[in-house]
């Protein structure tokens, strides 16, 4: 058995000490001399054309330094469907104009002085309505993105359904759901001649640098983006309009400008998990063999596309790939509406898709008289992958979310997750029922698959500095997931030094090489692979440089925590600082394209919940929760457990309480506050057990696979199935609030009586 120096150990989180003392600076904590405060005027209409804007009164207010409107702002695009500012507004809260003033109160007062003349336009707030032929158009080309659904097919679904003894179908919905990171978006912009520096709450400094460059038509090399620390985002902070507005105001005012969104703005103008309506059909033989799956999802992208195309695709992965089946189809309809824009949010569309799929799987098992666990054991996709023909040319890296069959996984611990999770929840042993007849307990489960791993070209540098410091330099941002800790673990392991010895430079576009955004659960796999390679190269280089100093052959030398020593005569050694003194500072760079030509790299898991439903009040309490995961080798158990627990608790919010409500009469977001968008607290945190399958992936760095997002996928179906097990009532719509549960009890029991 391999023994490791730091891999697999719960090294303390690198950036936590400064965060616990308040020393860590987040974007809103940046203060610059002469800095002004910006505020944004937002549209009161869900859809309107701006006819004119009168800014004279605002500009004449003493202390107001700059104003920008769509009529005078630069003409660049922030995204393909989003100009810097636009004369058409597309949701209540859309950016209309902005001001910079000496302080926040003045900026706020100036907003009140801006007179905007609107021509209101017809609007639509519901995605299912939006794709009907007579719906008002939010965009000239119509509301359905691309004019047609995304259709993904393997095999022949019609044949699959023809082979079935029975066919089941049901429809499920999930609401717009906000990540509501505790840190509202903030940006600070400062110009020095033609050079722009932006401090921003971001998960990708290089991506932001590129977006700012394209929008402002400023060369990339003139822009520096500093990530600072990031008060989390769960994917939702990919949005550059704020940074661009801040930069334009700063240029006009001739002073640095800071804009911090308010909590209400963060809810409305941030990004949320897309609301969906999904219909799933499943064909099965009487013995429980799945013969066909067909899922159709209608997804609301809101006023802007943002990450919508990626999310609509991801919503289909479960239907296409979780159950071993030759004949499957997924149709995804992505629709514009006049509501706040959805975005990428932890596991993208996978939680929505799996809620539908895994709820229906329960219905199917019950109808066939098969235990839900047994049904999954019988049908889950195995190591060999899906039946079918490989389509990707053999010399190309395989998509980690393929549709084609005929390609094996690099590793697949789904079966083990089912076994260890079911054992921990004592599956098959009915819940003990309380004496009170209104309290009913039950158990439920759901399994899942998730792509992850490869995240695009990844670069890592490693440097031996003149004082002997070993430094890892990557363009990554740590967004709370822990890459700032795990990357030096990988580097230290490869080098053969202690974890604490590897210093790290992250999150600054000027001093780090290009990195993909910290997204899609790809950081450990992609940048981790680059880091491991860079560490290997640095090790080789250090030994090469040390060899003449020790008058030894490089093959007789090894790295120790002090420096380099002879393998057989350990007393013959030289320290890192001596090596650097002799050779000067040196650096290596590894650039890799992560992935595999032979295998699909996916993470897996199975979640189990035991709940208690109060049939008088509709209240659901989670008594016990078990999350079993295959994410390959776990590089830092404590961080990994924290991440899984956090995702489960976060998604219990999605499952039970959280939703963004838009008034269909006027497009107004009704609950843009923590009091009304009800998020879990410490008192809602259930008794939870996190388990990891004993899997070492043959491709991932030290055997690791993706972990950040997968734990958010299994929660809603596990809880919905547990509620069904407890009271025989199927909840098809999230969140499962007490009033919804009560209504369903009444409706479904009424039906059967």
């Amino acid at each position, binding site marked *: 058995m391999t023994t490791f120096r730091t891999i697999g150990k719960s090294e303390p989180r690198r*950036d936590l*000490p400064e965060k*616990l*003392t308040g020393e860590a600076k987040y974007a809103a904590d940046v203060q610059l001399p002469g800095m002004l405060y910006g505020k944004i005027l937002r549209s009161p209409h869900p859809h309107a054309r701006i006819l004119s804007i009168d800014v004279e009164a605002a500009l004449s207010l003493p202390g107001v330094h700059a104003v920008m409107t769509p009529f005078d702002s630069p003409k660049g695009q922030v995204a393909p469907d989003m100009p810097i500012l636009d004369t058409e507004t597309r949701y209540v809260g859309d950016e209309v104009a902005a001001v910079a003033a000496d302080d926040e109160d003045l900026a706020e007062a100036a907003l009140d002085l801006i007179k905007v003349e609107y021509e209101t336009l017809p609007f639509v707030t519901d995605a299912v309505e939006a794709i009907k032929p007579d719906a008002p158009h939010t965009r000239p080309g119509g509301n359905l993105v691309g004019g047609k659904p995304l259709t993904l097919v393997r095999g022949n679904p019609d044949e699959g359904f023809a082979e079935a003894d029975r066919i089941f179908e049901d429809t499920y919905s999930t609401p717009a759901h906000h990540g509501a*990171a505790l840190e509202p978006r903030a940006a600070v912009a400062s110009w020095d001649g033609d050079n722009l520096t932006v401090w921003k709450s971001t998960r990708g400094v290089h991506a932001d640098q590129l977006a700012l460059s394209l929008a402002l038509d400023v060369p990339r090399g003139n822009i520096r983006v500093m990530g600072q620390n990031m*008060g989390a985002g769960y994917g939702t902070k990919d949005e550059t309009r704020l940074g661009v507005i801040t930069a334009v105001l700063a240029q006009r005012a001739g002073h640095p400008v800071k804009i911090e969104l308010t909590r209400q703005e963060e809810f409305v103008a941030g990004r949320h998990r897309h609301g969906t309506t999904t219909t799933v059909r499943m064909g099965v033989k009487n013995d429980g063999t799945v013969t066909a799956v067909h899922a159709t999802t209608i997804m609301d992208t809101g006023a802007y596309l943002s990450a919508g195309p990626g999310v609509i695709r991801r919503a289909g992965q479960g239907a296409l790939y979780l159950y071993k089946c030759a004949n499957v189809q997924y149709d995804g309809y992505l629709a514009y509406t006049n509501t706040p824009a959805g975005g990428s949010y932890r596991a993208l569309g996978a939680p929505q898709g799996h809620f539908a799929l895994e709820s229906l799987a329960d219905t199917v098992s019950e109808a066939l008289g098969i235990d839900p666990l047994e049904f999954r054991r019988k049908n889950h996709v195995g190591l060999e992958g899906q039946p079918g023909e490989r389509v990707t040319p053999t010399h190309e890296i395989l998509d980690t979310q393929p549709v084609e069959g005929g390609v094996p996984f690099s590793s697949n611990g789904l079966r083990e997750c089912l076994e260890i999770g079911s054992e921990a929840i004592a599956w098959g042993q009915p819940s003990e029922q309380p004496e009170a007849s209104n309290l009913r307990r039950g158990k439920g489960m759901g399994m899942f698959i998730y792509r992850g791993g490869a995240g695009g070209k990844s670069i890592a540098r490693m440097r031996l500095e003149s004082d002997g410091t070993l430094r890892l330099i990557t363009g990554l941002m740590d967004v709370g997931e822990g890459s700032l800790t795990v990357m030096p673990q990988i580097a230290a392991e490869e080098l053969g030094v202690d974890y604490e010895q590897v210093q790290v430079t992250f999150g600054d576009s000027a001093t780090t090489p290009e990195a993909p955004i910290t997204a899609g659960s790809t950081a450990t796999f992609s940048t981790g692979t680059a880091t491991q390679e860079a560490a290997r190269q640095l090790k080789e280089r250090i030994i090469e440089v040390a060899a003449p100093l020790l008058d030894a052959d490089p093959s007789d030398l090894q790295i120790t925590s002090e420096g380099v020593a002879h393998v057989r005569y350990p007393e013959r050694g030289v320290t890192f600082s001596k090596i650097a003194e002799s050779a000067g500072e040196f650096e290596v760079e590894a650039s890799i394209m992560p992935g595999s030509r032979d295998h699909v790299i996916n993470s897996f898991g199975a979640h189990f919940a035991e709940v208690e439903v109060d049939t008088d009040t509709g209240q659901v309490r989670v008594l016990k929760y078990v999350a079993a995961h295959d994410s390959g080798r776990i590089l830092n158990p404590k961080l990994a457990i924290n991440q899984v627990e956090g995702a489960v608790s976060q998604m219990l919010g999605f499952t039970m309480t959280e939703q963004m409500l838009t008034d269909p009469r006027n497009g107004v977001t009704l609950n843009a506050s923590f009091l009304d968008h009800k998020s879990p607290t410490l008192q809602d945190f259930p008794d939870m057990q996190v388990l990891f399958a004993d899997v070492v992936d043959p491709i991932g760095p030290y055997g690791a696979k993706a972990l950040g997002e997968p734990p958010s996928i299994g929660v809603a179906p596990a809880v919905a199935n547990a509620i069904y097990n407890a009271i025989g009532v199927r909840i098809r719509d999230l969140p499962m609030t007490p009033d919804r549960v009560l209504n369903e009890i009444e409706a479904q029991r009424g039906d059967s009586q």
Partner: protein
Amino acid sequence: MTELPISYTANITLNVNGTDHQIEVDHRWTLLRVLRDVLGLTGAKRGCDRGECGACTVLVDGDPVCSCSMLALQVGGRRVRTVEGLGNANSLNDLQEAFLAEDGGQCGFCAPGFIMSATALLETNVQPSDDEIKAALVGNLCRCNAYGRIIESVKAAAKSKTGQRP
């Protein structure tokens, strides 16, 4: 003619972490604003500005309060303690050490607020039960939902305080 917001100021003595500051404050300014923008103490965070998230928690005369929902004028002459008054990254206090050991945070934006609420709890109750910990910290949101590790952190700190090593 639009009327500007009326503003008047007052001089107050603000005692923060044991040091007196003579400050001229606008009557509209919250304690949070004065801490962050006037004194440069940015440990307390602005998460909602309306007392819903707890990220701005500080202690006023020993009690945890949301500094976003208290006017600076109300605090004149009272003792304010912020996270800056505890340890620093090179020498954490026991509570902060426990949070580091138990991984009581992810993105860390909520951490200063949790640390202050937990400080107030442990100063008045050296051996809190799980329920008491949850009740004392329920006003602090962590959107990373690192709640499991935060509860463990506070329990570990309480154990080390009473002489039992965690």
